[in-house]
């Protein structure tokens, strides 16, 4: 068999790669490969392409995503137009406009959302730390998520980044409001909204191995305080001259059962 035309050559290469050649044609093609260097080069090139695709797009570990699916109550999934999903947090508390929370004992009262069923769509376009800070302040510094206790807080970070995060008792005047998420270090970066003596402070958290380093524009009026904790990289962004939250962060220990059962 001799491959005459370019089109025929390409068809044979595809049939060979797809395993669609019968025994006789396969043997003939393999003989052709040995004799025709150009053909061999093309097939080798394809193998190289396929290897690269495997490196680039091999699947991640599915466990975290599958576990998230397992822990979600189908009755709480609302799918609105264009397939946006809102996990309706059916608060057991009576409707209340004000948000009440405190750390210290570590209890965070669940924000009542009975008057706010449709949470605004999450914008995951890439943004800088400074931009997120400006947006949060301009938007009234309101969190998207409020954890009901320390376990749920720790589980949120464990689920996203594989490591728990906790906040020790903070002094009077320093209080965490809740969590939000934005595409800064990665699409999963989570930030904690904290008020420090009336000043808004953000604490960004993500996996250290996903971080190439962060900075702030010199004219932003903000300061950047980094910290590495195990697998996590943490950045406190604040107009204050020193870090006021980082020292209170820790990585508490919980069992897998406790963390898996902490769901929303």
């Amino acid at each position: 068999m001799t491959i005459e035309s370019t089109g025929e050559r390409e068809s044979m290469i595809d049939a060979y790669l797809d395993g669609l050649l019968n025994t006789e044609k396969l043997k003939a093609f393999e003989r052709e490969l040995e004799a025709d260097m150009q053909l061999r080069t093309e097939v080798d090139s394809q193998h190289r392409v396929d290897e690269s695709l495997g490196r680039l797009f091999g699947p991640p570990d599915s466990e975290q995503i599958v576990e998230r699916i397992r822990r979600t109550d189908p009755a709480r999934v609302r799918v609105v137009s264009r397939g946006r999903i809102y996990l309706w947090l059916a608060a057991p508390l009576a409707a209340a406009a004000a948000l009440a929370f405190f750390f210290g004992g570590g209890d965070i009262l669940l924000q009542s959302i009975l008057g706010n069923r449709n949470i605004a769509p999450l914008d995951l376009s890439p943004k800088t730390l400074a931009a997120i800070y400006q947006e949060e302040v301009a938007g009234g510094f309101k969190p998207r998520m409020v954890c009901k206790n320390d376990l749920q807080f720790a589980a949120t970070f464990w689920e996203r980044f594989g490591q728990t995060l906790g906040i020790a008792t903070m002094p009077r005047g320093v209080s965490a409001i809740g969590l939000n998420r934005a595409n800064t270090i990665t699409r999963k970066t989570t930030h904690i909204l904290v008020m420090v003596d009336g000043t808004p402070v953000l604490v960004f958290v993500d996996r250290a191995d996903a971080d190439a380093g962060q900075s702030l524009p010199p004219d932003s009026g903000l300061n950047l305080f980094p910290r590495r904790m195990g697998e996590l990289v943490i950045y406190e962004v604040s107009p204050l001259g020193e870090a006021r939250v980082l020292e209170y962060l820790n990585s508490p220990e919980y069992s897998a059962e406790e963390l898996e059962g902490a769901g929303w």
Partner: protein
Amino acid sequence: MPGSEAKADAGDAIRKRSLSSAEFADRFKESFQTLWYIAVGMVRDRALAEDVVQEAGLVALGKLNQYEPGTNFNAWMGQMVRYVALNLARRERRRRGMPLDQHDLEQFSAAPETANGADAIRRSEDGTLHADQRHFDDEMMRALEEVGDIARACLLLRTIEGLDYAEISRLLEIPEGTAMSHVHRARKFLRTRLSQASSERGAVA
């Protein structure tokens, strides 16, 4: 006949019962890899693809009563993944201020706009790549920008997941011949582009 009536009744009962959420999670896990390749083929960004697969799973969880047990679960989930991926593509196009016509959407190739680009490349277990492989993979990502999203998904499902064209056709709801054509054209395009890039770099392709 009484026996066949009983069988028919049992069959009807099976068909009418929806999947439980636990059963769905098990099926979702089994299908994860296939759904991943659809997602990452369409959006070309690993972190975004994880979000797509997770969001598609949640969408499907909310619509379990619409899935008929015994029918092709992967095809049903494939619909969800494509729907979510397309919505993300629309949002991305809007964000960039670009037109939303169907042709553009089909040709959409999202740049992997993670802050540091690290998510775009999966590293070997010891965290290193040969320099030549790194260059090749970088060129591959650039070349894939010019391959349509459905064509990329077909290519990954055939090349890495090893599905035949009939299954790809069912998953993506396109004719089998179209799936085959996508794969063959994409292969040819990538071979040619990457060989040119290697020649320009002076490396042996």
